């Protein structure tokens, strides 16, 4: 069996009194759009942060692009793109300056840099905004720029933590089109979301609740496992169960 793009086994993370993620075991194959679904506080962000090397796992192990995240977090960072929940680019720099900065940080030089800057600019349609200060952009444009920066080094694995929060539907649709194009080229995407229509677009889903994996499979399979007709039913059932 070949290695999955992302694999976790019994992955656990404890904070002082709280266990944010408990015994999570996943296997995500190359080219998948894998959705992490669950109410706030269910452990989605903590999972992504462990896979990016931002948090150390308390127990279990995980590999990303075949590299152990606990043993070689810095090596993992070469192979991943990451969009955090909160917009993380420099608002006092222009679009070009942000792109050039991340190109430099990912070690792109000379010719390769020019080629990649041109490619992500065209891919995300940023051509008309290059000289604008990022602080002046709308949410939709910021999110496109964030994805462009995350893609500049052509990472095989992409982590998107609620990438479309606060973005209008038209911009969301374009964003998802970009994600499909990427998976066609073999990129693996792990995405968290609150939007049911977005969850439906994933090849597979994992539903989390209180740090545990509740259900996993295609969107229809997950809905059935939790006991609802649709994914939205499943989500509501889960949230009510959590609140009790």
């Amino acid at each position: 069996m070949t290695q999955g793009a992302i694999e976790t086994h019994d992955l656990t993370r404890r904070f002082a009194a709280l266990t944010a993620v408990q015994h999570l075991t996943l296997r995500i194959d190359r080219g998948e759009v894998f959705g992490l679904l669950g109410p706030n506080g269910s452990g989605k962000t903590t999972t992504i942060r462990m896979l990016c090397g931002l948090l150390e796992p308390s127990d279990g192990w995980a590999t990303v692009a075949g590299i152990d995240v606990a043993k070689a977090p810095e090596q993992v960072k070469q192979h991943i793109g990451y969009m955090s929940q909160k917009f993380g680019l420099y608002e006092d720099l222009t679009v070009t300056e942000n792109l050039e900065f991340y190109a430099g940080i990912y070690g792109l030089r000379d010719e390769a840099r020019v080629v990649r800057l041109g490619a992500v600019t065209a891919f995300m349609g940023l051509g008309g905004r290059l000289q604008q200060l990022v602080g002046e952009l709308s949410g939709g444009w910021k999110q496109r720029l964030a994805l462009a920066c995350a893609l500049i080094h052509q990472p095989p694995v992409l982590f998107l933590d609620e990438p479309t929060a606060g973005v209008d539907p038209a911009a969301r649709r374009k964003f998802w089109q970009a994600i499909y194009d990427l998976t066609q080229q073999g990129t693996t995407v792990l995405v968290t979301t609150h939007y049911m229509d977005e969850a439906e677009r994933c090849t597979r889903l994992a539903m989390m609740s209180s740090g545990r994996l509740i259900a996993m499979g295609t969107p229809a399979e997950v809905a059935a496992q939790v006991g609802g007709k649709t994914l939205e039913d499943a989500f509501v059932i889960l949230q009510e169960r959590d609140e009790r």
Partner: protein
Amino acid sequence: MMPRFWPMFRKEFIQMRRDRLTLMIMTALPVAQLLLFGFAIQTDVRHLPTVVLDQSRTPESRDLVAAFENTGNFRIIGRVNDRPMLDRAIASGDAQAGIIVPYDYPRRLARREAATVQVLVDAADPLSSQSAIAAAAGVAQVRNLVILGAAAHRTGLPLDARVRPLFNPGLRSPNYIVPGLVGVILTLTMVLVTAMAIVRERERGTLEQLIVTPITRTELMLGKIAPYVGVGLFQMTAVLFIGRYVFDVPLTGNVPLLYAIALLFIVASLALGLVISTLVRTQQQAMQVSFFFVLPNILLSGFMFPRQAMPPFFQWVGLLLPLTYFLKVLRGILLKGVGLDALWREVGILAAFGGLLIVVAVRRFHKTLD
């Protein structure tokens, strides 16, 4: 070697240029401080306003009062008729000194008895009274020597201590204060500016995006401080320039050598700011900690108050401040014109401070969120 240093440097440089507050701190603050300290702070007190109660009103007494005035420390602002008037003038602050020549002054002089003259000095402010007290003693001594010399029928004196003030013969305050200000201003701005550097990224949420990249901790830290090295050198140049042409402070020694050593001091101060940045959570805390650090630098480094006068404990604390060593370098080179042979110890210590603080800052910084 450190391929991600330059992108980091470029980014910091652009951000620095666009940040009005930082630019203000770095340009207006040094100039304001220089003018403030340079003009306002004069430790040599001259022309103390003085009232005279001359009870004898003779040529001898007028001669004596003139001798006091000629020292330059006393400025006679008026004559009073009795002791209560004199006391009132000093108590009200109109005068800070009073000279009382008793009615029998010329008679006692003529009889070769001990004549007394009383000098009252407002010593509520020790600094301003000191020079007056010293000058009064000097006047008496000079008169004594003349009188005793005449009595002993000698023209020369048995002992003549000739004091020659070296390096600052005019005993001018700016010569002492302005070189020190170079160090104080660099400490203040360099520490403050980098103390904010990392917390600012943490507060704005840009740090998370940065630490999922392969940038190393050293590249991040060095890239952050490097643009400010240029700022520090620029500040130093501005202060020296104003010092030279506005306050007439001599630049005696090897100025390129001073710049080379200043580089070490600037790096040490910037690295210290980074250490602070890894200790605090918000920009406001960073600012508070920086000011908390700057105060002992001004008080204990020897910038304003001589270290020799401090109790041993505070002298020892002063030895932990990079500024203490840099002040020796500044005054050594600018006033005394000494070179590396006299300053190698200070240079070694400053280099050690810089290296150690960078290592501590890098070690304390983690590329994780917990």
